[in-house]
């Protein structure tokens, strides 16, 4: 953990200029992430949460949120709300609904467009995210390939979790999804907007994955590890006890 630091709890209005000048050397320009703003030569916190630092020069505030604010480049799960001939609109849980062009799918042409229905789920990437404009989604990467993006199969189960939980389970150091996969076959798609889609072979397994994810919210990394090892050993009772703790 040498290059990542969970520093301390900060509240809006706090100045952290002194703190940053102790961390970031003068050779670098400090990059301010979410929850921080610069006022003339002071750096002020605007959200309450944990101040985090990544070497060499990245500082941000990790906070608890439930409402998504679009950010360019993030992967989200949208629900199609209206259908047009050129574009569809998708609800991504933000203040505005997002626009998704039917031509921004792999291999789509004017004559050959994907057939989307209202209520379909799409896993897409945010292309335009500006506070003054409505967000725009795409289902292709810069090479015109879909990669993992596109319409999600209708057989899965979608649920909404707080945004910090999605960040937690998607963090490479979190063993939860991997351990679950060693025990039960399932598919998962987690959007940065707090929507998680899972698809397992049976209802029991779907619920197990759902419970494991939702209980991970209030667990420390160590507790997640304990839960994972219990899931791995198939000890259902112990798993339940850990979850309910």
């Amino acid at each position: 953990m040498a290059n990542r630091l969970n520093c301390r709890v900060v509240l809006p209005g706090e100045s952290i200029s002194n703190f940053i000048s102790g961390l970031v050397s003068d050779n670098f320009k400090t990059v301010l992430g979410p929850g921080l703003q610069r006022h003339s030569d002071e750096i002020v916190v605007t959200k309450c949460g944990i101040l985090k630092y990544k070497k060499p020069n990245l500082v941000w505030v990790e906070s608890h949120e439930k409402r998504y604010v679009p950010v360019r480049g993030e992967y989200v799960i949208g629900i199609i709300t209206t259908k047009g001939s050129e574009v569809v609109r998708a609800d991504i849980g933000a203040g505005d609904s997002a626009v998704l062009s039917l031509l921004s799918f792999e291999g789509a042409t004017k004559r050959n467009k994907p057939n989307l229905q209202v209520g379909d789920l799409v896993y897409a990437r945010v292309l335009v995210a500006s506070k003054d404009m409505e967000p725009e989604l795409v289902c292709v990467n810069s090479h015109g390939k879909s990669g993992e993006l596109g319409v999600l199969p209708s057989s899965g189960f979608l649920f909404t979790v707080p945004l910090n939980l999605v960040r937690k389970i998607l963090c490479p150091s979190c063993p939860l999804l991997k351990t679950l996969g060693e025990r039960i076959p399932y598919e998962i798609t987690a959007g940065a907007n707090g929507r998680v889609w899972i698809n397992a072979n049976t209802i029991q397994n779907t619920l197990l994955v759902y419970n494991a994810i939702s209980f991970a919210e209030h667990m420390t990394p160590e507790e997640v590890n304990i839960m994972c090892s219990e899931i791995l050993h198939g000890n259902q009772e112990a798993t339940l006890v850990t979850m309910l703790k």
Partner: protein
Amino acid sequence: MLSDNKENETQSIRTLSAELSNLSRPDGSAIVAQGDTVVQSAVYGPVEVRPNKELPDKAYFDIVYKPLTGLPGCPEKLRERVIRNTLEATLLVNLHPRKSINLILQEMQNDGGLLACCINSACMALMDAGLAMKCLVAALNAVITTEGDVLLDPSLKQEEEAKACFTFAFESINHEVITSNTQGSYSETEFKKCLEICRSASMKVFDFYRECVQRRFSKEIDR
């Protein structure tokens, strides 16, 4: 003996307690108790705005105050307006143009200092929702009794008997006044005295905010 006791009483505020995120549906919620005064608040936002309320450069900040019984009348609408103006000064509304931030306040129990408790509860709900703010805000209530003494954070009975009643809201950076709401007649020195007593007590409220947030994030911070 009596005066000693009284001196002590005037300087302290009633016990503060709060629970963050106690409701599951809103984006942020908090229930705050100041002694026996309890206010529940919930925040939704930034969400879509009604076209007639849309502002091109900032978010529309809407507050609904729900009294314990009956429909909101003029005093409730006034209180709503005071809370709205206080909190809009601290929120970074310009980050979400053409959106709306909705705050709902439900009075649960009133034992004096309701306006102050509303502002504190609303501030905690906004903190809980993770909305960007310039600073935090702490509100305090004080009265001047018929004998001319200053009484900090009075009960409803003491508030009703008082000569004058003050509610001040302070910001967390320089502890300057954001809102001053007064009722009754008082002299300039009395006003200043109340203001200073409330200002020094506001530190306790800010400490309480920090303690709440620290407890909330206790599982994520490296030990």
